[in-house]
């Protein structure tokens, strides 16, 4: 029973196979050697085994060769413009599915959204598209057109930390994330990495609220009033307490609440709460398991 790491060829991904152990010298001897065998130096015999196992990896793990990235399963990408460009190109190649995460910044989001719009027009919705965004990343025109009107895509709002990326056809991905060492981006085609990415994406998706449209309360003052009223409603305060908090009469408060209810299309307070949550009017509190 042996144990293989293939660091050089597949950047940052070591495959530990059930049936091969080959010590490769790049990391040197492990610090304490405890619990596992120390890495040795490659020898002819080892190199031969390496080649054999490489072939095994190539045939079982690699599904497609991308001309852009040669044979690598995971490759580093410059985290600025190149990441966005590559993502757009990836998006354009989607034939079955596209899963997008936008929880980072507009400089990445804007071109990717544009590329997705183009894809949708080209394929007339014949692609399964999911957008997982944080509230500030939502492009309402895009949502209105493709989620609400055409119903070709679904957009859900989630609280995810700084992450952006696209997964195309459950096969290829580009991810861009901030870490302690700075922003990094990688193009990924290793199905062993894509699969957990998708599973976790599904996990977040399942707990996220779909948005279909944005509610416009009117001018800034009215929007601000609406926001404060929604805050009171969400806190479960009585009308009397809320009206006092907002320095208005109970009757005026109730009139505003009625207006909000009609704006979100609700005939009961419970229904209004449901609609407001579904419309993403409480982005800071989306889908939590605890009160």
């Amino acid at each position, binding site marked *: *029973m042996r*144990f293989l*790491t293939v660091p050089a060829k597949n950047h*940052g*991904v*070591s*495959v*530990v*196979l059930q049936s091969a152990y080959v010590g490769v010298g790049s990391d040197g001897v492990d610090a*304490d050697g*405890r*619990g*596992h065998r120390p890495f040795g130096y490659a020898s002819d015999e080892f190199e031969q085994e390496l080649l054999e196992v490489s072939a095994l990896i190539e045939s*079982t*793990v690699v599904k497609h060769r991308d001309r852009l990235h040669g044979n690598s399963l*995971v490759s*580093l990408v410059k985290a600025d413009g190149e990441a966005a460009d590559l993502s757009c190109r990836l998006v354009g190649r989607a034939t079955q599915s596209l899963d997008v995460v936008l929880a980072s910044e507009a400089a990445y989001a804007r071109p990717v959204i544009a590329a997705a719009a183009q894809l949708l027009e080209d394929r007339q919705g014949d692609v399964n598209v999911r957008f997982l965004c944080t509230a500030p990343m939502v492009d309402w025109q895009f949502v209105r057109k493709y989620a609400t009107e055409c119903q070709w895509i679904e957009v859900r709002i*989630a*609280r*995810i930390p*700084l*992450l952006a990326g696209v997964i195309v056809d459950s096969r290829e991905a580009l*991810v*861009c*994330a901030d*870490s302690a060492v700075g922003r*990094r981006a990688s193009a*990924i085609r*290793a*199905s*062993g*990495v894509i*699969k*957990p990415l998708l*599973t*976790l994406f*599904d*996990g977040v998706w*399942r*707990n996220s*609220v779909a948005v279909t449209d944005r509610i416009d309360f009117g001018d800034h003052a009215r929007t601000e009033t609406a926001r404060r009223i929604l805050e009171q*409603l*969400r*806190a*479960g305060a009585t009308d009397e307490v809320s009206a006092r908090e907002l320095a208005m009469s109970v009757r005026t408060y109730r009139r505003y609440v009625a207006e909000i209810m009609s704006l979100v299309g609700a005939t*009961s*307070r*419970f*229904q*209004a*709460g*449901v*609609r*407001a*949550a*579904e419309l993403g009017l409480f982005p800071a*509190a989306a889908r939590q*398991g*605890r*009160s």
Partner: protein
Amino acid sequence: MMAEDEAAIGNAVGMLLDRARHSVSLALPGNVENAKAGVLALDRLGAAGREDLTVRLLSTASALAGAAMRDAEIRIPRLETRLTEGELQEVLIADGRLVLVRSNHGPADDCVLIIEDPAAARALDLLFAGVWSGAVRPAEHARLHGRLRSDLARRILERMRDGCTDDVAAREVQVSLRTYRRHVAEIMRELGAKSRFQAGVRAVELGLLSAGD
């Protein structure tokens, strides 16, 4: 063959745990017996008793009954467990930087992947955090899946969502108005809501109304 497989997995898990300095996050699928790497990690964490590590364990309700998780609760110092719906894949993450994943392309291809690529590892870590924040503690999960997901509770919630008045809804679920209101009050208590509006928000947040999907 079995013993040797476990040696390889053991090496990989050992390496990951040795390198962890602050945190270990584990996602375990429901059929825990197959999650060799995860179970081994829990066992080693239990044995090591590391006070410096924050351990987050994400799994599904079906895994709760198993010995591995029960033992983990007792032995691992700073462990938090949360439950989520849906499929999970075996994933171990150390310090948000080093990831171990079990990969099953088939019985011949079962392998363990170590992912050190910064962007890929971070993406997995951040998505884990996303699932984690939507997951619930076991006690809350029991509550949600008990009283709030009973047939009657569901039917009542649906009518409330549709904006039905109380007396129409009571008639539809075939109880008296007073009984209906009592049920609603119970539901609101389970939701931790003081007003009907708040109950509506909570119901959506806890996924009691949507299809989930």
